[in-house]
């Protein structure tokens, strides 16, 4: 089982990295109204789906995301 964790700066939290990327995109002529930069973490697990989601949530709480400043989303991929 594969899992993907998407970690994003929480809504309302300033993201200077996103702002810098937005400014550079504008220089290239792309009119983008907002950019937020997060992180993707791919995991491979031995669990079945039920156990996997709970385990990945615990991983996020304890290490992969900082709940004060980041939100996370878990996607499980059963096909591989």
């Amino acid at each position, binding site marked *: 089982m594969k899992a993907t964790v998407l970690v994003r700066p929480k809504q309302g939290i300033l993201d200077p990295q996103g702002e*810098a990327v937005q400014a550079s995109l504008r220089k290239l002529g792309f009119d983008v109204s907002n950019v937020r930069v997060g992180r993707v973490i791919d995991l491979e697990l031995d669990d079945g789906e039920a156990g996997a989601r709970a385990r990945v949530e615990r991983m996020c709480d304890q290490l992969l995301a*900082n709940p004060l*400043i980041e939100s996370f989303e878990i996607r499980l991929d059963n096909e591989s």
Partner: protein
Amino acid sequence: MSKPVVAIVVFPGSNDDRDAAWALGALGADPVLVWHAEAELPPGTGAVVLPGGFSYGDYLRSGAIASLAPAMGAVRRFAESGGPVLGICNGFQILCEARLLPGALRPNRQLEFVCLDATVRVEAADTLFTRRCQPGQELVIPVKHGDGAWFVDDGTLLRLAARGRIVLRYTEDVNGSLGNVAGVVNESGNVMGLMPHPEHAVDPLLGSADGGLLLAALVDAAAEHALASA
């Protein structure tokens, strides 16, 4: 009386550990470097310093990986028993990630590494770490960091300030830190973190000796804690 032992935890990527040891030694402590893989602090430890640097290359988030090191279990137990703990720069980031201090250190607002002599104002002079300072005293202490913008939610900032836990503030905005906060202390008053580097400001020849006020107070606290636990 023997010199108080101050344990300095060395992580892979720490780079101010020896500077901290030198400064603390000059101020009358017996500094002992402790490798992060150690599960215990040296016997008789009176205080702990988490030094500056880039532990684990700042992977994931600054301080996140180091906060889980075996030595941090010992540091947590030491802090919970009332032992004084000072986190400097990366050490501050580690203490926040370990949730021993409130908040998180985010990338500087200007997305640039800052390296300058910062002026910080002592907001609380009644802590273990600032009791050699006067309230409102301005200290010149160098900063050098990329992730120094301290963040908490607004309610928490007000609550911390009301309880005297905001210890140091920059006199001007250096990194986008909320409320210009440069240093905070925990609820029990024995764990402090700050972004400026007091160990680089202990000799007027190097520009300032103001950091010595904070580190000498830590050495005092180490002696008291060692005596109380003996």
